[in-house]
């Protein structure tokens, strides 16, 4: 292997004389990034812009606010937005705090080192274990004939379905989404916690700070930007997720991505332009979440300097 590359290198470099090498100039400074920019323009930015513009046009291509207004006035659409925001918000908040607690426990809790490495490895896997297989796993666990459902019923006399548990509810989906939200938080926040230097704690203690003051004035301000950034990421992650919910219910559950999915597949709303508006609304919501994040971060960075 080494032999081959060595001989090839000698072969390739010989014919190019220094003169040719200097004579050869790239036409512009931009050549290396051109494929990248063409790619993202054609397959990320323009398709998105196309939908955004479509959201403000009627069937004849004239400018209108009707589609956007219909998002609010049509109760089935606005309800689907609220359901999606509710699920994404709580799965992000609960996932973030649970993930933070787990991360602090494995980094600072004085647990054996295998706990830390095992948790990190598992989190890497679980944060990418989403979509349909995740739904299948939870159906096998907490579905009507799932193992845990049966054990709870036969051993503990608890019928969770009689108690109102259901995957089709917001809380049911939040429980399932936490399976990838918590690990994602762990994966992102552990490096940030590692970045807290021991000396800071010692310095604070030397200055007479209590442990609570150290947390309030050092740890929380330092971790806050990456924590908040991850919350936003978790929110967007849940907001766009469709496959898990789709596997539970098919196209009947009323959350935005499933609504858009049905609309793309069969124009169930009987107005093609309305699909654009729904997509636009999704971008606005995840985009707004990011604007908040940037705003918070610049505010907190001002104090960190």
């Amino acid at each position: 292997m080494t032999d081959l590359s060595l001989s090839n290198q000698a072969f390739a470099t010989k014919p190019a004389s220094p003169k040719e090498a200097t004579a050869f100039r790239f036409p512009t400074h931009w050549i290396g990034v051109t494929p990248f920019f063409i790619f993202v323009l054609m397959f990320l930015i323009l398709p998105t812009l196309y939908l955004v513009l479509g959201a403000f046009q009627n069937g004849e291509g004239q400018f209108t606010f009707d589609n956007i207004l219909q998002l609010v006035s049509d109760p089935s659409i606005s309800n689907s937005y609220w359901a999606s925001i509710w699920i994404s918000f709580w799965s992000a908040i609960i996932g973030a705090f649970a993930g933070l607690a787990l991360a602090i426990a494995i980094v600072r809790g004085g647990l054996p080192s295998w706990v830390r490495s095992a948790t990190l490895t598992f989190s890497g896997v679980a944060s990418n274990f989403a979509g349909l297989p995740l739904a299948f796993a939870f159906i096998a666990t907490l579905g009507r004939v799932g193992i845990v459902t049966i054990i709870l019923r036969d051993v503990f006399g608890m019928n969770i379905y009689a108690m109102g548990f259901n995957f089709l509810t917001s809380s049911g989906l939040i429980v399932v989404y936490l399976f990838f939200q918590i690990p994602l938080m762990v994966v992102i926040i552990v490096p940030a916690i590692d970045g807290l230097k021991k000396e800071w704690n010692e310095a604070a203690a030397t200055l007479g700070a209590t442990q609570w003051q150290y947390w309030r004035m050092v740890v929380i301000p330092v971790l806050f930007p990456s924590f908040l950034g991850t919350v936003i990421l978790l929110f967007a992650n849940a907001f766009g997720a469709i496959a898990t919910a789709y596997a539970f219910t098919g196209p009947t559950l009323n959350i935005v991505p499933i609504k858009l999915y049905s609309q793309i597949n069969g124009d169930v709303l009987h107005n093609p332009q309305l699909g654009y508006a729904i997509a636009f609304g999704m971008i606005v919501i995840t985009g707004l979440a990011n604007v908040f994040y940037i705003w918070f971060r610049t505010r907190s960075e001002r104090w960190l300097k």
Partner: protein
Amino acid sequence: MKSGKFWAWVVFIVSAAYFFIPLIATFEFSLRLRRGVHSFDAYQIVLGDPRFQATFLYSVVAAVFTIILGVLVVVPAAYWIRLRLPQLRPIVEFITLLPLVIPAIVIVFGYIRMYGSNSPLPFLASDFGASALLVIGYATLALPYMYRAVDTGLRTIDVRTLTEAAQILGAGWGTIITRVILPNVLIAVLSGAFLTFAIVIGEFTMASLLNRPAFGPYLQNIGANRAYEPAALAVIAFAITWGCMSLIQLLSRFAPKSANRPN
């Protein structure tokens, strides 16, 4: 301090229970196809299903092309930004984060409307075009991970010195990228590649809306119609994800630790 350790254990054990009970239950459930005994019948049925084989193969091929496309788009750009255009870094980082903000379903909706059969670039007019568009969509989804992996890899090598050394030896740009830079960031690229593979292999939204015979829509179909096979498929999918992540961890042991090593 003692109570801190106690609570750390509590948090860890509660989390472990939440994560392991569904996995164990899924595995147990997948063995129940034959009444009264545990058997691997569900796995046999799934693995022997020609549709499983065909769709899985389709998704593997799509993943491989996604990785190739991702490398072709990301490596030159990340390299060039390190070498010549550091002022573009914030813009490019922002763009590569966009697929985390714009949901996949919105991106693919844009494709369907922009590249439909009657458009100037009719990707969706043919099966091949639609498959190409799926690979492109997957490469877009993988962009954040691929870019970060490659950029991290480039950070650990001295891009400028390596490039100048290669230029002094008379290498052209093609040689520099394929024979000098790429081998140095190969491990980083492979990490990105395995992550891409894990994301792409069971992807449902894009494959389903572009009407491709991929593994994701097959999973959906089985999930809607069978009882025990989905559990077996979930175990298989978890094993694939686990395999990809283990390979990334394994590779990270071979990665160079930092630039400017003394020897």
